[in-house]
Structure formats: C-alpha cells, structure tokens
C-alpha cells in the first residue's frame, strides 16, 4: 500500500524538490502540502483520511514547526510527524513534544528516504 505524506514547508524551492523526490519513489504519495504552520493545522483538521506521515519544517510564517506539531498532535495523537530543520538546536524540543524523528537539513536524498522509512515504521 502506498503511504501518504503531508508536506509542510515554506520554501517554495524545497517544496517542489521534496515533492518531486518523494513522488519518484513508488512507495509514497503526496497527500497535500502547506506553506505555513497555521495553514498546516487547518488543512490537517479537514483531512477525512489522515496522512501516514507529516514532514514538518520549523521556520515558517504564522506558526513555526514546533507550534504546528503540538497542535496537530492535540488534534490527532496518532499523527506521525517527521521534523525537518537546518537548526539542530530544535531537535531535542521536537522529539520531546512528540515528533517521531528529526531530519537535519540539508539532507541528501538517501538520508531523506531513510528518515521517512524510519518515521513510518
């Protein structure tokens, strides 16, 4: 079965790139994308079928990744969130509030896929 991914990322270049990389992999499908934390929460609420994984950027407008992660986990305690940031100093915080993994950016493709696989299972 194809795993669905909800991609949250404010940098349009990275969004396009990650989407392309993820869609090249037969195992995954992008369910939807959001470009800020607030929008991510609103979209998550409306999903009738929840994604198998959320890839969450940290530095974003309106609400950052930590805030969005906390709110999404409040809506759905089973949400699996893979935190992705260049700022390693938020790693501890992200895992503490319930992210299932942390991906340090910039991440090469193999590291990205390994991170997704590990976060899904």
């Amino acid at each position, binding site marked *: 079965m194809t795993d669905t991914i909800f991609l949250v990322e404010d*940098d349009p*270049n*990275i969004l396009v*790139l*990650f989407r*392309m*990389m993820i869609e*090249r992999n037969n195992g995954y499908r992008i369910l939807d994308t959001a470009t800020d934390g607030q929008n991510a929460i609103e979209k998550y609420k409306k999903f009738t079928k929840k994604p198998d994984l959320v890839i969450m950027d940290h*530095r974003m407008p309106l609400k950052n990744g930590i805030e969005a992660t906390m709110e999404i986990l409040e809506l759905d305690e089973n949400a699996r969130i893979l935190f992705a940031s*260049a*700022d*390693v*100093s938020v790693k501890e915080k992200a895992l503490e509030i319930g992210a299932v993994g942390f991906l340090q*950016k*910039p*991440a*090469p*493709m*193999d590291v990205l896929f390994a991170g997704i696989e590990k976060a899904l299972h």
Partner: protein
Amino acid sequence: MREKILIVDDEHSFRVTTKAILEEEGYKVTTAEDGLAALDILKKQIFDVILADLKMPGKDGIEVIEEAKKVDPYTIGIVITGYPSLDTAIEAIGKGCYDYMPKPYQVEDLKRIIERGLEKNRLEQEVFLLKQIAEFYNDLMAHDINNINQTTMGYLNLLLESSRSDEQKEYIEKALSAVKRSAKLIEDVRKLKQVQETEPELKVMDLTAILTECIDSAKASHKDKEVTIIYNPSAESQYILANSLASNIFSNILDNAIKFTPSKKVAIDIGVDDYSRNGKEFYRISVGDRGRGVPDEVKEAIFGRFIRGQQSIKGSGIGLYLVKTLINRCGGEVWVEDLIKGDYTQGSVFNVIVPKGRAEIR
C-alpha cells in the same frame, strides 16, 4: 546632534545655573520644578540624560528616573542631593541610576559625569547594534543559505541518479561534496557560537563509544574514498570528562585527515594512552594520517582561525578552530606533530588530551 538633558529640581536657582552651564556645553536643556512636572514632560519626549534631585515633593528623583527608563532604557539617570548618604547612593544605583552626585557640585565634575554617561550610552547602543548584525548574518547562513544548499543538493542527487557517464557522475559528486562542505561550515559556525555563548556542562562520557561513532560517520561521509581507520579499543572502559559537543573534536580531526590525504586510499591510525601533566590525569588520543602534512610555521596557526596576525590554511574552514575551542572548554589540549619527525610531508599526528572522568560518578 545635540543631546537632550532634563533637570528636575525644586530649587529655582539650581535649575537656572545648571541649565546655563549645560547649554554653554551645547546640550539642549529642559527643566521641571518637581517630580510630577517631570513625569508630564516625560510623557511627551525622551531625554538622553536626566539630572534629578533626590528629595522633592510628590515624586522623588529616583522614581522619576525609574519611570523614564521604562520608556527608554538607554536614558542616563543622575541623582543629585544636598544630603548625600551611602544608603541613598546604593538605592539609586540599585534602581538603575547611572551616577550619584552631591550638591553643590564642581562644574567640571558635572560635565565629566554627563560626558562619561553619554559615552557609555553610545557604546552600549553600538554593541547592541553589532550583536543584531551578527545575529542577522548568523540567521541568514543557518536558515536561508542552508535552504539553498538543500535545493542544490537535492537536484544534484536527482541528476546523479539519471546520469549515465562516469565523467558526469564524477563532476556531480564533486559538486555534491562542495555543497556538503558549505553545510558543514554553517554547522560549525553554529556550534562555535553555542560554545562561545554558553558554558556547556562537563559530564562523564564513554571515550570508546565516541570514537567508534566518529569513525563510522567519517567513513560514511567520505564514500568517494577508500578509508581504513585502525582503532583497537581498550578492553576496559575509558571515560573522559567533556561537554556534549566533544564528539566534534574527533569528527573534525578525522574529517580533515581524510580530506587532506591526496590519494584515494586513506589510512588513519587512532591510538589512546594515559597521559599526565601537573598531577592531572588525561587520556591522549592520537590520530595519525598520511596526508599532505602541516609545515612547522603553521602548526599552531591552523588552530587559530580568528586570531589576528595569524594566517590560516586556505580551505580548512573553521573546523580546527572549533576543535581547539571545544577542547579548551574541557580543560584539555590539542597539538599537531609530524608522523615522521622532521619530514612533515609524510603526514601528521593530531594529539588531543582530555581529562579522565571517573566512571563511578557517571
């Protein structure tokens, strides 16, 4: 720019003379006859300096200065009093006043205190501004440039996948490793900032575990080379007293050893032995490589990226500077020797000494 001064005193003659003296100096002076009148004026404008009498009906001088500093923390508050005492002086300084002076005053003293206060003010504002600029550049690198690195790295990965020719693959690999170096440089700057700004706590750590992890990640990040690292961990546990960033000491040294070995085959030896100096017990970790070596003239300079007057080797990033900063924070040391004494071109040995940690307090 004419600095603005507010004089607050219920004594008319004091206000008039002091105003005349300070206007003569080029300041723009306003006066208020008591604390409440001063507060009214402070609602409408801010002042660089407030000169306030300690004892006044309504609001006293310290209260006026406290109020003014709530609006502009850079305001210099000077309390003046005809009844100087240690208690009120301590109270004034404790509440954020810059200085305290008796009345009557010497004209030269007054001028000097105001000038000095304004100078302190200028420096503080300058430091604040410079910190903001530094923060801005740091943020720009850590976030914006890393986002660009992510995009570049990703497309190169995709290109590498679809590339057929070996020559193309080689060029793409080279470009990828350049992007990784850029990301590593940013990461090192961040770590350096972290060690410089905070004093990371020292804790007892397992040296064998740290070295094993560093060896694995060094090999993993240099897949383009055939890396052999010989390390025979001691049978008994070896504990060091170091901060949580300590693994960066060894990962940077290993990374350099691999990077600066010109051939595709890289051979590195790691040895650990006991070392004592001035009655203190250390472990000495020696990392020997067969790289291009370090000439005597730069054996110290390679660790001192930012020290004025010292040259650094081009392309070495700030890795070794980070190594030195980290090891100093742990109370240890780092130095480099020739693998073959007297012939640096045969390779180097990087020696690191780290204080031993006691396992029982782990």
